[in-house]
């Protein structure tokens, strides 16, 4: 049996830890200093999207609106230079969209209203709370599931990797000051799902290696596992990135934030499933004793396959 080359992933684990810590510090620092550029969903306020037939001039629009007495108006291009997004903190005014449109069409007649949104401040605040709680509940439940299915140290490793990914993705939005809206929150939660997927695949292999390979050297065993799953980790990340790029390039402005968040999340998630989860396991001194199979049989895997998925012949085959 020819043993393929084992990559010494864990040899770089101190450097990786340093990189992670730097990224985390930058993220948390940025969150503390400049916070997130929350979108309308979270802050409340009014938001109007208008479309022009020919390229629009944002500063003209800003001036028109400011002269008309609107305060705190943010005017920016939305996706291309014919679409303009206008945000303002305006109290509940049912005619706001029409008023703004009337003002703008006085200046230029080729303007049309594309979208008009108003969110009350209490709704926004609630959403922020709910979003935070949702994330914590997700992390908690996942930790419990892994602790039951694997072992407590794996749960810590997985949750550390998840928290790492979530903080860095949110930190990315803080550093770049991209709008953080509801779809981005959905993406962050999807990152939890994705990164978890990755971490579990790796953990699963680490568990298997610890049980089946005789050599009692945790660093070696983790390296073997990571090498074995490397191809799948990279390929899955690649296919996911392919669709995310398609979504980001062709999906339009409304879900751009979503695809950016997921792209960052997938990149970080791939890195963290290799370096964070495994690193934590080593730091917690994972040993073979932790993973003594509770069952007597040594092939744990086949036992857990439900009957409908196994071939009746297969079992006979195993007995041979």
């Amino acid at each position, binding site marked *: 049996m*020819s043993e393929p080359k084992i990559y010494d992933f864990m040899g770089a684990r101190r450097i990786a830890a340093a990189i992670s810590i730097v990224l985390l510090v930058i993220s948390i620092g940025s969150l503390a200093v400049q916070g997130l550029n929350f979108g309308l969903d979270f802050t409340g306020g009014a938001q109007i999207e208008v479309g022009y037939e020919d390229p629009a001039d944002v500063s003209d629009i800003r001036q028109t609106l400011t002269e008309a007495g609107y305060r705190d108006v943010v005017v920016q291009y939305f996706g291309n230079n014919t679409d303009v997004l206008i945000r303002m903190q305006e109290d509940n005014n049912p005619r706001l969209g029409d008023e703004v449109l009337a003002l703008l069409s006085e200046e230029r007649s080729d303007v049309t209203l594309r*979208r008009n949104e108003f969110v009350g401040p209490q709704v926004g605040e609630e959403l922020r709370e709910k979003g935070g709680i*949702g994330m914590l509940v997700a992390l908690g439940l996942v930790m419990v599931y892994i602790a039951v299915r694997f072992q407590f140290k794996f749960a810590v490793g997985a949750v550390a990797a998840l928290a790492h990914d979530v903080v860095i993705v949110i930190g990315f939005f803080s550093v770049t000051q991209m709008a953080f809206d509801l779809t981005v929150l959905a993406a962050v939660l*999807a990152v939890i799902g994705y990164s978890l997927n990755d971490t579990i695949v790796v953990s699963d292999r680490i568990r298997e290696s610890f049980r089946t390979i005789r050599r009692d050297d945790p660093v070696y065993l983790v390296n073997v596992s990571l090498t074995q799953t490397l191809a799948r980790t990279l390929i899955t990340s690649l296919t996911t990135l392919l*669709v995310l*790029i*398609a979504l980001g390039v062709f*999906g339009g402005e409304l879900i751009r934030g979503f695809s950016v968040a997921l792209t960052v999340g997938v990149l970080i998630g791939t890195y963290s499933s290799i370096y964070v989860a495994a690193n934590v396991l080593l730091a917690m001194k994972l040993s073979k004793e932790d993973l003594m199979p509770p069952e007597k049989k040594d092939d744990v895997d086949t036992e857990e396959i439900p009957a409908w998925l196994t071939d009746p012949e297969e079992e006979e085959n195993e007995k041979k």
Partner: protein
Amino acid sequence: MLNKYPLWKYALIVVVMLFGVIYSLPNLFPADSAIQIRGANAGLEMNQTTLNRATDLLEAENIDYFGAEIIGQSALIRLPSNEAQLRAKAAVQRGLGTDYIVALNLAPTTPDWLSSLGAQPMSLGLDLSGGVHFLLEVDMERFIESRLDSYSSNFKRNFREENIRYRSIDVMDDNSIQMLLADEDTRDAAETWLRRNLQGEFLTEDVEQRGLPGLKLTLSEQRRAELQDYAISQNQTTLNNRVNELGVAEPLVQRQGANRIVVELPGVQDTAQAKNILGKAANLEFRLEARGNEGEVFPLRNRQGGRGTAMLEDDIIVTGDNVTDARVSYDENGLPQVAVSLDGEGGSRMGQVTRRSIGRPMGVLFIEQKSLLQGYEDVNGEPVPIYDTVEEKEIISLATIRGAFSNNFVITGLDSAQEASDLALLLRAGALAAPMQFVEERTIGPSLGAENIRLGVNSVIIGFALVILFMVAWYKVFGVFASVALTANLVLIVAVMSMLSATLTLPGIAGIVLTVGMAVDANVLIYSRIREELAEGRPPQAAIDAGYGRAFVTIMDANITTLIVAVILFAIGTGPVKGFAVTLSVGILTSMFTAIMLTRALANLTFGGKQLKKLPI
């Protein structure tokens, strides 16, 4: 022999795929522009005569149409274009008058054999179809306060009648009622009275204030929840009635959380008008029937469809603001009646009037502002609807006063349970509802909706194509299996979503795209395993088997945890995020089937039972 599926597994896969194709098929048929006509109230049935009147109106205006049919309670007329649809709506609404509601609609073109199987297309969310979304919040604090006010005036009157001497009964800032009583004995009497008459509605607590014994009453949790439910459902009913007036084909009025109501109006663009109609009030007036000729004549609502009139006095006894509740109940003979409750102020006025008016009929007048579509005005080439506001007044009940009453009374002499519940509904609709305010509003233009669909579909196709290209290049024949599985997965997601009548939103499409990316993960896991097994020197058949077997547990664990996240997303999310969570969960479940069972079946069919030297993977 290794890698052979029993026949039933192949049969199962064929059946599931057949099911997937049939139920996803309706989404491929584009919908027709149409108008939908239905009676303004439940009693008015749609029949062929009315439909003929509508089509005659269209012909008179030279508007082409194709297909006019009656479906249940409403009629559907299909039109060739969006523009014809608007003109048709205006023409038919004008011609048929206020008895009918004419709404813009999209008529599905699902072939009969598909609809007979229950297959129907997915409905599109507002971000894809265009329309208005409102979130209204019921002001519970003010509602509860007004209920407490009415409780406290009831207590005062009841205590006077029972000779329970009180010094003061006040509603306090902390939403409690404080009563100060003359002495300890009176307090006991008050407590006994409260226990007997208001079982469980209040929690009582002894207090001592200004040297007087007192009681502090706080609403019990249960009663509070009941009141909140009542306020929400009452507002919901009212909103439903008003949304009907707007002439929207598939409006949604739904409770969200403890104190909010979501209203979604697909296709509506005129937000301001929609808000005016949703926010306006109906009212009630209780008046005696006029003796002689001094008074005002109003139409009398009549369940037989006839239109009588009655003359009412100009003096108003109480208005809807004083009505706190109206419910259907039954008398000892099992006949339906409506029990009406008034607040303290209304009750005492009612008492004074009824004492001297026994034997005279009293009418309940229902007043409503209605907005009627008059037609469309051409503004810069775009049709802008013109509405006319009229006040409609109608007597909904005229009944003889049998004896003096004040706060609580019943209206009897109703013919059926249906009539009783109609009357109760109208009374409640006109009654003082808890105040509501708009807390969220979103309008999506129809062009943006169409653009979102185009963008979404494009990114699904492109993402899909990229993944397939990669998989085939990387895993060759097995990559083809994975691609077939991916396609099958897409078909199944659409089929399941259509069956659940789930709403497709833009984030929902994003969810599908993401599932495409992640669903291949199962195959990647399996194939990597197979390659490893081959590298370790296993024969090809054993490698396939071991690859599937060992990867299975990993796939399960990974998918279950992702599912946990999707479920949480569904629980905390609103509209768009929910859409994402639904497609993600459906996608995970269907991908388990396609990525494991379907690809295995394909591999078995291609390679199973053969002597293989090498595996093209």
